[in-house]
């Protein structure tokens, strides 16, 4: 049964079983996306993912199928994450230092002759995660949607609720920052 058929059942017949199947199908990608956005905070990512699906259930009738269901879910998930960050910032107002992430990549240069490819890959992954921390919310979201979720710029613009040109700008700026933070990895 396709997503569209399950959505129709969930909307018209209020069939929770149909929606449960949609949750099972998409939970992995939504939770993985939120884990990226929350910089690996699995607990927070799962809380936001749950909020995402509850909101999806409430607003399923307004889903016009003008995008893939997964893209629509990414949009809700990203909005949940941004709303959570706004609330957190309000709570931490005045404590500016707590919001600044340590974006500096490791000064060590892995991948020396004795280092295996696997170890090099793991080290790059760690540095990449740390470097993602120095991006702004919009830049991080743009990178996650365009690279990790493999969306086109148009789809990413739909998810982020901004023009395509803005997405491209965010991606470009993010890559400039990543390039600087990961300069040690340049060949």
């Amino acid at each position: 049964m396709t997503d569209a058929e399950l959505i129709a059942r969930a909307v018209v017949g209020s069939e929770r079983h149909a929606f449960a199947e949609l949750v099972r199908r998409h939970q992995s990608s939504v939770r993985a996306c939120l884990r990226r956005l929350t910089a690996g905070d699995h607990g927070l990512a799962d809380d936001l993912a749950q909020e995402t699906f509850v909101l999806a259930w409430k607003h399923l009738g307004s889903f016009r199928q003008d995008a893939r269901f997964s893209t629509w879910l990414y949009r809700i998930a990203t909005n949940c994450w941004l709303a959570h960050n706004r609330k957190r910032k309000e709570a931490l107002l005045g404590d500016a230092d707590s919001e600044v992430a340590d974006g500096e990549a490791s000064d060590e240069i892995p991948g020396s002759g004795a280092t295996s490819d696997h170890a090099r890959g793991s080290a790059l992954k760690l540095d990449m995660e740390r470097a993602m921390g120095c991006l702004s919310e919009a830049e991080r979201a743009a990178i996650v949607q365009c690279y990790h979720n493999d969306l086109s710029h148009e789809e990413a613009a739909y998810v982020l609720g901004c023009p395509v040109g803005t997405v491209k700008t965010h991606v470009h700026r993010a890559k400039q920052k990543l390039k600087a933070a990961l300069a040690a990895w340049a060949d």
Partner: protein
Amino acid sequence: MNTDPARTDAPDDWLERALAADAIEHRAVHVDDAGFAARVMGALPAPAPLTRWQRPIRWTLAGVAGAAIAAAVPGFAADVAREVFRAIAAQPVSLASVAIVLAAVGAATLGAAAFVLDRD
């Protein structure tokens, strides 16, 4: 978009490769459900119950609809009942067959009730 061949020609080729490799690894990871879907379903808002004024209206409408159908086809219900009775009366009736019919009706009722409760 990670597979765009034009990207590999860019001077920051190494960054594209790193991002692409990270993205491929990200998509390969499957997050185990581990009860997540059940938690989501438990967190969904309960279906809105019928309000006090909706219930009598629903019963009244059902009654009106039934009466309208009966009035629209006079004699139809009586004809159906007569034919059903005639068909049953023509069958040889034994205690065992009555018991089987009762058991079948009971099982069907229980099955229907379980299905409806499960759906709600």
